């Protein structure tokens, strides 16, 4: 891990040795073993195995409906697994959910800052929910806003923010309590190219400054190529390929792009996988972005 804890270390040290199956190597930040989630007859996540190395930026790729968001929801304790187990920082997501929640940050796919509050107020509410002490609170909020380049917009209602600004505000919010693992679901979907690059730069800065492990889902191959050190390609609820973007490209031969890798492993999934819900959600985000 190359990171330097310049400021506060991530709250809650990883519970060393508690992660099952660590097999001598450093304990992974996130580990899922034979994870399954069914919704009625539909199996969204099917026997998923996953190890996210501590300190890495890990990309979960796959077409709509591959089970990425369901996986993230289980790892962030929002959804109980049907079977199998998952640990975050050595804590079981089902049985030690409060311990997990204290140590993670989460940015959902939707632009989810509250439009009827100012940027500052959005952060204030979460600083209080995470029980950050009063003396620390103002300083951390100010730092987070500065860090994300939002100091001037702190007292503006968020409904007047652009999509890129809302995303940055959400990243600012998610780092207030110094999470050791940050989960992002499609962090740049719907953003223009400039806003996307800004968000990427901020995520890299975030990792450098606080040493957080970042687990993100995306179906944007450029994003995965730019940002992720390890990617897992998901298809029909399973991991079908795993490796660094460079390694995965090499396996397909000279000149292959990550797009090629993606299509190679997921085939014609584009047409069959997407569900109405995904499409509706995408539209909603698009509407908010105007």
């Amino acid at each position, binding site marked *: 891990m190359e990171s330097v804890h310049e400021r506060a270390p991530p709250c809650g040290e990883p519970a060393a040795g508690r992660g099952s199956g660590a097999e001598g190597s450093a304990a992974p930040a996130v580990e899922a073993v034979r994870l399954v989630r069914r919704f009625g007859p539909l199996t969204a996540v099917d026997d998923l195995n996953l190890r996210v190395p501590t300190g890495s930026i890990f990309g979960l790729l796959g077409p709509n409906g591959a089970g990425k968001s369901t996986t993230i929801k289980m790892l962030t304790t929002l959804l109980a697994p049907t079977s199998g187990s998952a640990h975050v920082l050595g804590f079981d997501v089902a049985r030690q959910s409060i311990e997990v929640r204290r140590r*993670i940050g989460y940015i959902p796919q939707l*632009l*989810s800052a*509250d439009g009827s509050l*100012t940027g500052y107020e959005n952060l204030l509410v*979460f600083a209080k*929910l*995470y029980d950050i002490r009063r003396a620390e609170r103002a300083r951390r909020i100010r730092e987070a806003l500065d860090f994300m380049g939002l100091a001037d917009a702190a007292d503006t209602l968020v409904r007047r923010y652009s999509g890129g600004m809302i995303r940055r505000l959400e990243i600012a919010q998610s780092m207030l309590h110094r999470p050791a693992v940050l989960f992002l679901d499609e962090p740049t979907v719907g953003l223009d190219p400039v806003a996307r690059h800004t968000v990427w730069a901020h995520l890299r800065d975030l990792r450098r400054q606080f040493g957080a492990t970042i687990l993100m889902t995306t179906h944007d191959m450029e994003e995965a190529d730019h940002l992720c050190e390890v990617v897992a390609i998901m298809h029909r609820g399973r991991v079908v390929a795993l490796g660094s973007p460079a390694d995965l490209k090499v396996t397909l031969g000279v000149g292959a792009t990550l797009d090629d890798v993606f299509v190679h492993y997921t085939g014609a999934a584009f047409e069959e996988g997407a569900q109405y819900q995904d499409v509706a959600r995408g539209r909603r985000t698009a509407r908010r972005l105007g």
Partner: protein
Amino acid sequence: MFVFLRQTLAVAEAEIRKLRHDPMELLTRAIQPLLWLVVFGRVFGRLREIPTGELSYLDFMAPGILAQSVLFIAIFYGISVIWERDLGILHKFLVSPASRVALVSGKALSAGVRAMSQAVIIYAVAALMKIHLRLSVGAVLGVLASIALGAAIFSTFSLAVACLVKTRERFMGIGQVLTMPLFFASNAIYPLAMMPAWLRGLAAANPLTYQVDALRELMIDGGRSLFGLPRDFAVEAIVLVALIGLGARLYPKIIT
């Protein structure tokens, strides 16, 4: 315990800050109860057939209309929960270490504070209509407490319903279906003594009845609670605790 309280207050504070940014909403909410008082109350007051004891009909119904206006706002509270789910705001709350009970209690508290604004408007109109209000500090504080409790009850009930039905369309339908029966199966605009037995049975199981009963004594000069204030508040408190327990269980289910 203190952490729990702080988290509850944080959720309520967010809602109250939103109101401060957009107070117009409170004014538009005041129109309906005004119509009830000024139009319905005036007309039915002439009837003199409704046995309201020593109170004039307007004095009798004013607490009922205050309770009703609180109910009508609170019962649609669930829509904001569905809205927050659709926007993804709720996901972030649920991923925070705050307990579900704190999140639901915070929502209930904010609904209570929001409802107090109704009292201000209705008191102003009631004074203009020469309704005999009790204006002692103790009585007014009692009214505010009763309103906050009523709003907390019905907003939490609404939240629980929202977590079950999950979509705005279905919720709106159910909200419409719920409000009128809750209102009519209560002592808000006619006394329990007038009701057929079956309706009186329903009214006895309706938290709104106890809220109106308490308000009648606390708000109106010469008004008398039928059940006694301790019983009114005890029933409401028990219902609220039960609903918050239920709401906290259902709350995480809204995102699945």
